[in-house]
């Protein structure tokens, strides 16, 4: 545990496994919120104390750690579900796939032509494996709400990746991305409500049976 940044990144990686392995939606949302809050601490740690990084960190912390989880909790209260039952691929296989993705992220990251200061940091493998975990959630789960969570983890991965570029990227772009995410969650919430009112559950499997 060399410094705080790599500790945070390691924790994020471990949280990925926790999300992939749990079936309780409440836990899932809390863990995703924790993950978001943790990675929002990264910009000031990497780029030092300036307004840019503080704004970014503050925005991400409020959105990822507060507002979005609150919206999701509200959503699961409304549609009255507590846990994801029978995902498309079982939990054990999902966990194994997650481990495989993490391992290949580490291998892949070592082969990329990176700047020397990024070469042995955990940022690249962390970002890739978080992306992979998000993808896995999106693909393997049936309920719309866990898919939204997958999308959030995916976005967390992009955020970790983006931190490396934070100096080159204007603040405007990043706040735009964060806002996009918020809007996306809103839209997904509305979609979820519609699926729920149509089929009296938010199982996306029903969408395969749509007729005119």
């Amino acid at each position, binding site marked *: *545990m060399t410094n705080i940044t790599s500790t945070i990144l390691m924790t994020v990686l471990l949280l990925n*496994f926790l999300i992939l392995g749990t079936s309780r939606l409440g836990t899932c949302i809390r863990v995703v919120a924790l993950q978001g809050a943790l990675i929002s601490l990264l910009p000031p740690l990497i780029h030092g104390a300036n307004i840019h990084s503080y704004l970014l960190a503050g925005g991400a912390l409020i959105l990822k750690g507060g507002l979005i989880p609150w919206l999701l909790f509200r959503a699961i209260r409304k549609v009255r579900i507590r846990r994801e039952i029978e995902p498309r691929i079982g939990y054990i296989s999902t*966990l194994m796939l997650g481990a495989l993705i993490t391992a290949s992220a*580490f291998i892949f990251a070592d082969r990329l032509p990176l700047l020397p200061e990024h070469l042995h940091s955990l940022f690249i493998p962390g970002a890739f494996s978080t992306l992979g975990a998000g993808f896995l959630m999106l693909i393997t789960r049936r309920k719309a709400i866990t898919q939204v969570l997958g999308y959030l983890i995916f976005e967390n991965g992009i955020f970790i990746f983006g931190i490396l570029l934070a100096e080159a990227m204007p603040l405007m772009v990043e706040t735009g991305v964060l806002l996009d995410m918020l809007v996306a969650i809103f839209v997904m919430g509305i979609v979820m409500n519609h699926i729920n009112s149509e089929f009296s559950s938010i199982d996306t499997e029903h969408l395969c049976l749509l007729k005119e």
Partner: protein
Amino acid sequence: MMESLAIHLLLLFGLSPLLSGIIAKTKALIAGRQGPPVTQLYLDLWKLFRKDMVISRTTTWIFRAGPVVGFTVPVLAAMLVPFGATAAPLSFPGDPILFIYLLAVARFFTILAALDTGSSFEHMGAAREATFSVLVEPTVFVAFIVLIRVSGAFSLNNMFGAVTTGWLLFSPAGFSLAIIACCLFIVLLVENCRIPFDDPNTHLELTMIHEVMILDHSGSDYGLILYGAAMKLLLSGTLILNLLLPFQGPLILDMLIFCGGIAALAVLVGLVESAMARLRLLRLPQLLIGTTLLSFFALILLLR
């Protein structure tokens, strides 16, 4: 050598029954009860060893061998593990494998003894025990592989010796070792039939694993089983403590740290038991495979 042997035997026989007392006391205090005295297991053992045994006529010598092996194997295995700064009396390259398989032999004989009773109820427990032990073993193996990789040594003595020469968390391999320590803690809970996996106090048919296998044992045989289980708890705790605590000071201080650490670990187990409900049987393999994957992850981190 003689000194370390003496310390090992003293701690193993003297201290180990205290641990389950500490766990029970912690649970009782958290539940707001007074609970049995910490020395309850000593009293139980004293009582049991003076009692006669009732042995079913359908059983063979295997039924008697189960408790004996279950008692001797932890003693043998403890000879391979350093207790804090006290080096293990026996040590040779490759002893982690012997350590794991010694514990497997103990489990094998417990299972055989349970099967030997001919009761289908005990067979059920034996089947569960076999399943879970299969799932636990890879975690322990990968954990030892990580330790071998960190220390470059192949005997438990040198492995832990290299690891414990400083505070773990500040070394470059610290994170892997921390993960391994967590995995070993879960292994401790499984191996010693602690609550998220198995409730040592229940006698409910559907959920028992270890308890059901020893139902037919009585008297001194039962005492041997309890004593062996207590020593196994001390042994599993030792693996974790060797990872987490630095031992460099004078011997007395190290022993005090070690005993304090093992008591703290027992309190921690008690806390976990009070805070958690037992998991469903179907969820247990998932958790155990999760720990295996976590220890693999620790290995990946080291290899890059």
